[in-house]
């Protein structure tokens, strides 16, 4: 009996936590804006001419880098990426496309071959769509 009661209580706590999770995020929002302001006023020269990592690493991990960039730049406002070689880059899809737009099919070739359908182009304009 006691075990059943504990389980019910635990379940209720979980449901409560899940339903208030969204508000919890709201409560923490103020802190984030302060952080954003701090980042925005930081003067940093942005350089988009170098590769950020080796080819082999990027082939397997580019989606993780982009995901990380999106989260930290959009949600925390931190738009500066410190590459392992010391150079500072802007966390933006344009940083990549600066060089990689030369080949219009740069993204699509592999994604079509491997049948991967990322959602990048739901919002961003792809190289295929620009004249």
């Amino acid at each position: 009996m006691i075990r059943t009661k504990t389980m019910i209580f635990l379940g209720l706590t979980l449901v409560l936590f899940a339903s208030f999770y969204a508000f919890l995020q709201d409560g923490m929002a103020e802190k984030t804006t302060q952080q954003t302001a701090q980042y925005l006023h930081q003067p940093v020269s942005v350089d988009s001419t170098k590769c950020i990592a080796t080819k082999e690493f990027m082939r397997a991990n580019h989606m993780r880098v982009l995901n990380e960039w999106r989260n930290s730049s959009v949600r925390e406002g931190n738009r500066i990426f410190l590459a392992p070689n010391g150079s500072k880059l802007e966390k933006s899809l344009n940083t990549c496309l600066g060089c990689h737009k030369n080949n219009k099919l740069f993204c699509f070739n592999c994604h079509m071959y491997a049948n991967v359908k990322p959602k990048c182009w739901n919002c961003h304009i792809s190289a295929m769509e620009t004249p």
Partner: protein
Amino acid sequence: MKKALMPFFMVAVLALIPYVGVRYAGLGYLFGIVLPYTAMTVLICGFIFRMADWMRRPVPFCIPTTCGQEKSLDWIKQDKLESPSSFLYAAARVLSEVFFFRSLFRNTRSELHKGSNLTYGSNKWLWLGGLAFHWSLLVIMLRHARFFFIMVPDALQYLDDADRFLDVTLPAFYMTDALVLAAVTFLVLRRIRDARMRVISLPSDFFPLFLILAIILLGISMRYVTKVDVMPVKALMLNLLNFSFEPPGEIGTLFYVHLFLICVLAIYFPFSKLMHMGGIFLSPTRNQCNNSRAKRHRNPWNSDIKFRTYAEYEDDYRDKMKKAKLPVEKQ
């Protein structure tokens, strides 16, 4: 406990073989080309052999297991699915067993309560766990079509889209990944937790579970955590499907472990309990019609009986019968 630990270590050792072989001995060709072909040959030939062997076995008796009213007089309502009298309903019963595990749904559990009160209760956890496990594995297998076809068929693409419908995390999270992991964990724990289940569990029950668990964990790890470049993987798979013997490109070692364990599973398949995949269609208690009163079931190994009809008897003794003034049918 040894019964569970031994298969666990077997899987661990098996996983180490390609890891060492590819990383330190450079045996990519063996593990990427030779072994998959061998494994598929063994799987297909073995499967066909086992099925043909079982299909040739005679079925001596009409023994369908039923739990409903059989076909009788017109005014008695027949339970057509539970006690089928035609091929169509018998097939429907087998298929519902295959797709929904109906007999597991009726699973009951008996327990002793307060000393000597034996009670029976419905117990659907095995049914739910088994269903989640098998369906997830099927969906995951179909999803892998994206590695085997240049253009994925539309139906499989829809299945894939439905599976990542939640649209969270960047390599989109597949629901079946979580489902199958939960289900296989439950199936392992179910055998380990209960003392009575432990007694009847064998290493051959644990081995496929651990093997499949390892394959799933490696697959999930390659997708979400330790990334593997998929381009050479797809090239290798297309090559394999085209029966080409080109050596594979540079692929992460974890992929070879994943592939090797699948090959082990494929080779193990025809020799193991996993043959229930084909066997369920051939089980006589399921696939026969319950029509033993309407139709005579002939035992195929009965030798032919020589009957002597009355007409033959009369032919032999007609003269003597006439003399004794016995009535005869034919003069």
